[in-house]
């Protein structure tokens, strides 16, 4: 049976930056309710090098993060390992984490990035209304996928193949 990790990151004290963490919390509650033991959850402020070791222990990983990119509500895409992925001093990208995982541990988990559109990033704990809507939509999407298949890899891949990059407006 495949082991799945859902990993949200961002700062919950900075308004919509909390989206990834909040989605993970919602998913964890949903998972408990449905007793889906194969799914594990984790959250942090940023991704960092030790996450390469963490994801090496799973067959499938879904990162969830707030985004300021020009996307509508949310997108999901396959993470392609990339050694040149931008990384600053104390945080690294999902692409880099995956690359490091492959390099150091020779493990190749199926990895996806669920980006949720955020709008405001002030010192507040509450999401903006638009971000709340995006959170609900992304939650609906992810639970749909997981409800339909205990091995959601093929399902997500089909979405991506069909639409190149899934965007739900």
């Amino acid at each position, binding site marked *: 049976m495949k082991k799945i990790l859902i990993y949200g*990151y961002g*700062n*919950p004290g900075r308004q*919509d930056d909390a989206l990834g963490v909040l989605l993970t919390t919602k998913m964890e509650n949903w998972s408990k309710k449905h007793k889906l033991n194969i799914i594990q959850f984790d959250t*942090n402020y940023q991704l960092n*090098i*030790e996450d390469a070791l963490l994801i090496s222990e799973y067959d499938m990983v879904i990162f969830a993060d707030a985004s*300021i990119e020009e996307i509508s509500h949310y997108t999901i895409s396959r993470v392609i390992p990339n050694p040149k992925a931008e990384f*600053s001093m104390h*945080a690294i990208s999902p692409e880099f984490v995956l690359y490091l995982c492959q390099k150091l541990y020779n493990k190749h988990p199926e990895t996806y990035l669920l980006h949720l559109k955020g709008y405001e990033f002030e010192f507040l704990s509450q999401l903006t209304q638009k971000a709340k809507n995006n959170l609900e939509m992304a939650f609906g999407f992810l639970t749909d996928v997981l409800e339909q298949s205990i091995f959601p890899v093929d399902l997500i891949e089909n979405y991506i193949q069909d639409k190149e990059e899934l965007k739900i407006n």
Partner: protein
Amino acid sequence: MEQKLRIEPITRVEGHGKVTIHLDEDNNVIQSRLHIVEFRGFERFIQGRPYWEAPVLVQRLCGICPVSHHLASAKALDVIAGVGPNGLTPTGEKMRRLMHYGQIFQSHALHFFHLVSPDLLFGINARPEKRNVIEVANEFTELAVQGVMMRKFGQEIIRVTAGKKIHGTGAIPGGINKNLSLEERDLFIKGHGQMNVDKMIEWSKDALRLFKNYHKENRELVDNFAAFPSNHLSLVRKDGALDLYHGVLRAIDENGKKILYDIDYQHYLDYIGEEVKSWSYMKFPFLKSLGKKDGWYRVGPLARLNTCDFIPTPLAQKEFEEYKAYTDGKPNHKSMHMHWARLIETLHAAEVIKDLLYDSDLQGDELVAKGKKSYEGVGLIEAPRGTLFHHYRIDKNDLITMCNLIVSTTNNNEPMNRAVRQVADEMISGQRSIREGMLNAVEVAIRAYDPCLSCATHALGKMPLEISLFDRIGNLLDKKTN
């Protein structure tokens, strides 16, 4: 003609920062500046909030070193809670120390293994595609794995002491809210595989050996790169020992003469001022006794090993003696020796963690001390990057009315500017073109300080390196993005 070279932002430095280097028509550097966008809004945001919320709220400031803010804030509120900095229960203080030294350990390990080691292993003049952590992973896989494990070890210490990874609640005014169970303790003593404290000590020693070997072969570079005299400031224990959690405030001048005589930091405002400059969002702290021009100082590992008299753990003390002997016991002003000092602190942190893990006070159940409330408190801590100040006042309704923070990177503002100028003068002046090696030299000088530029918001923190070259009237001559 004057040209302006902008390096924006600095690669491998968190947050928003840019370097501007002004060149005249002969390509001589006539001015250099490090510009940092610092988020000062937090000090206003927290006004009106109940004081006991502060140790959690301050973690909104920074997703990089939230533990340092958490503890500095809690220390300030210990004073407000009437417990004072010395009145915690043994369990309370030791749990906080464990959390803090876990933070120091993981932060220093990350900085060395994954940011500095590429420069050391491949040389600062190596091609950018060579000089990065992926190449370390390719050619020195074991070293890269060690870096990951050391970082994870420190992060796990934080998790069990702070209660959780995000917005930890471990420290509260007057104490802590949990102790360390024997089961948690054994994770770190007997940790499966290599995840145990003895292995962390061994790897810390290996990292020091790596640095010292590099130093032996590159003495000229390591000793002279971005080296300049300065004052140094840090906390020290009352007996002069290195103490990263608590102590008195000491500053020395470039010759080692004490210019702050182990003062009680509750009175820091009598001794330290903050200057505002028109071209920077970040303040410039200075020692009032020396004035704005001469009163700037360095903080962080280099400063701490200059101000302290000894290190109270045996392996780190032995390394400290060798380190001090290198400069004949005089203050060390060599910026690249910051890495050496940081690795000695890494070893010290691992030793402290081990001592604490074997201390049964961590299983005590007296978690919080109580006292008579006051209305003002200051908390200082030696964060990985240097001295961190938190200062609060509250009203009779327990609401915060004033907050002043001086973060480590702010304390190092002037020194980082000096380092940039030093490198710019040496490597860029007189050149007709800007080579990658020169740009990286500027970054290496800044990176030595391990600055954290307070960009707590993950989604906003993504910026590529952009280099722009302007002429004297602002025309863009060149622009590069990595």
